[in-house]
């Protein structure tokens, strides 16, 4: 388990981390969310000792992270970087060797990952000759080459087309399934909701929301109500208690109400008032939770 506890880091006058707490278990996948400049990258770098925190601890399986632990971690930094004129198979093999793999194992792993990412026929091409999306795949392969126990990926989906997103998602899911701890940051909240059981939302250096997506949604103080009615909709909606906002797109009304509001009486009234064509009552989306958390 990776555990970040009460991490503080300032760069001059800028506070990057202000008591950041995070944890991700083996077999778990944590979506790390937050607006730009919230401290995601700084927190991820602290795992690899790339920045030294002012205070707080970063532990792996309960002990402070040592250099030997780093060899079992995989990292995809926000600043993508590969040797542009090196052949991709050579490049992946080199990364494997730096993580202590034998030449044979590193070469075989490079072959395997190129296969997974459908790049086998480009193994002797240089990185600079690849498209942006393919470079990103090689970058992920470089993080995975040594079969790490912990994967830390900074914006792995940024700039990918939907097909590449699917491939990348599948790989991350598999990694978590076989018992790896996976943490990744992203701004694509639908994707995170789809992929992750757990999320952490960081704002101004502090994790303000952390938990499983299910729990967070259930615990949210609001619910979404969507309805389409024939007849006087506005009068009907006015009978609801705890309305936070309403919206009408010309066809359907979207109402945000307090979670405590009992809507069963409302449904009965709606059916009386006219034909209820559509009705949905849902927990808020991750995007809503995110907006709520960082405002």
């Amino acid at each position: 388990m990776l555990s970040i506890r009460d991490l503080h880091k300032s760069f001059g006058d800028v506070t990057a981390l202000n008591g950041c707490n995070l944890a991700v278990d083996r077999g778990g996948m944590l979506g790390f969310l937050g607006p730009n400049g919230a401290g995601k990258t700084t927190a991820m770098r602290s795992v690899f000792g790339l920045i030294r925190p002012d205070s707080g601890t970063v532990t792996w399986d309960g002990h402070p992270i040592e250099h030997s632990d780093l060899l079992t971690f995989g990292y995809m930094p926000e600043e993508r970087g590969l040797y542009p004129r090196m052949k991709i198979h050579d490049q992946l093999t080199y990364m494997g060797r730096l993580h202590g793999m034998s030449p044979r194992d590193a070469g075989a792993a490079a072959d395997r990952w190129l296969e997974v990412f459908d790049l086998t026929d480009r193994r002797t091409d240089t990185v600079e000759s690849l498209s942006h999306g393919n470079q990103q795949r090689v970058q992920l392969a470089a993080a995975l080459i040594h079969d790490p126990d912990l994967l830390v990926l900074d914006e792995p989906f940024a700039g990918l087309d939907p097909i590449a997103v699917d491939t990348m998602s599948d790989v991350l899911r598999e990694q978590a399934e076989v018992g790896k701890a996976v943490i990744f940051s992203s701004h694509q909240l639908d994707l995170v909701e789809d992929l992750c059981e757990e999320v952490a939302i960081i704002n101004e250096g502090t994790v303000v929301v952390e938990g499983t997506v299910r729990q967070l949604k259930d615990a949210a103080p609001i619910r979404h109500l969507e309805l389409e009615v024939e007849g006087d909709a506005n009068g009907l909606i006015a009978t609801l208690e705890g309305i936070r906002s309403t919206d009408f797109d010309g066809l359907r009304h979207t109402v945000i109400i307090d979670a405590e509001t009992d809507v069963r009486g409302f449904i009965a009234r709606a059916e009386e008032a006219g034909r209820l064509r559509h009705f949905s009552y849902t927990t808020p989306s991750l995007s809503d939770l995110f907006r709520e958390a960082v405002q």
Partner: protein
Amino acid sequence: MSGIGAVWQVALRELRVRGRSKAYLITSALILAIVVALVVVPRFLGDDTDVYPVGLIGMGNEPIVTAAEQLANANDEPDEPPSVSIETTVYEEATVAKADLAEGIIDAILIDGREVMVERPAGFTGFPLLNLLQRGAATVELEQIVAEEGQAAADVIEVMTSDPLETTTLSGEDARDETGGIAAYAGLLLLYAAILLYGTWILTGVTEEKSNRVVEVLLSSIRPWQLLSGKILGIGTLGVGQFAGTVIVAVVALQVSGTFDIPSISGATIFNLVLWFVLGFLIFAVMFGAAGSLVNRPEDAQSIALPMTMSAVVGFFLAMATLNDPDGIAATIGTFIPISAPFVVPVRASLNAIPLWQYGASVILAIASVVGLVFVGGRIYAGGVLRYGGKVGFREAWRSARD
């Protein structure tokens, strides 16, 4: 991966990728071609005889010319062409001779065996011809004195061109043996050239990982000092390899073409020169590497090279002073400063002018400074690495690594 293992991996990548790059292969081939041409072409351009055209006016010039030629060629091997040949032209009119001298058709005019005229005062290198003619004239005069005294006809030329005094030294070597000094001087030049030629390779090479931003991935698994020393080792080996290849080819070409006779050098001298070449190159390579840690782009690298090149220049001139005074105070101080020791110590050792303890101490100091510089450089590297864009000050880099 063990500490040295990672260094080796980084170095190996440099050797593989850089060593196979077109830029490296083409420049290597080009340099070899130039060196061979420099050695071989002069061989075909002319024989070994220096020819001096001299104009003669009046009487009594020929004996001087003959004596001058004999003096110059006295120590020639019998089967080789003469070192010097003086071609004479007799002029009736002084004005014609002066006109030819002005146009460079002749190099000097001898007048009545008493006077010699050249076009202008000697430059920095002096006038070999003028010296020869003066000595020729002196010889002719001596021969006349010997004849007048009624002595047996002594061979004045032989006396003038031999060493009548036997020379010895405390150490039992030949006092006129210059090979030690020549070898030291050659070693000095080679080290100086290698530092100036390949230092900036290392400097710009170290910025590579920062400019392509692969550094963050690398430093997630290896330590900064491992990356830095691997880079220095790899690029340095390529540089020294190209340099050594060039020197070997040049030596072989010199031997084969016979342009220049290389004196035979003792094994101890060669060991001394190679040891200090390696130490000196390493010290400067690590300094260039550490400086490279402060900048993020190859374009910024040049501006930061000056302190290292200046150090090499100072070391070089200190060593030149050492050649003249190998156990003076400057030489002794230079021995204990790691950046001047690689220039000074091999010179003193070649001239047998350094106590054993000073030699040992300077080697230990040099090795210690290489190790120390690697760690200082690694720390600067770690501090400067994630600050993209612009130069990072030494202090800032040092502090941020400690934070």
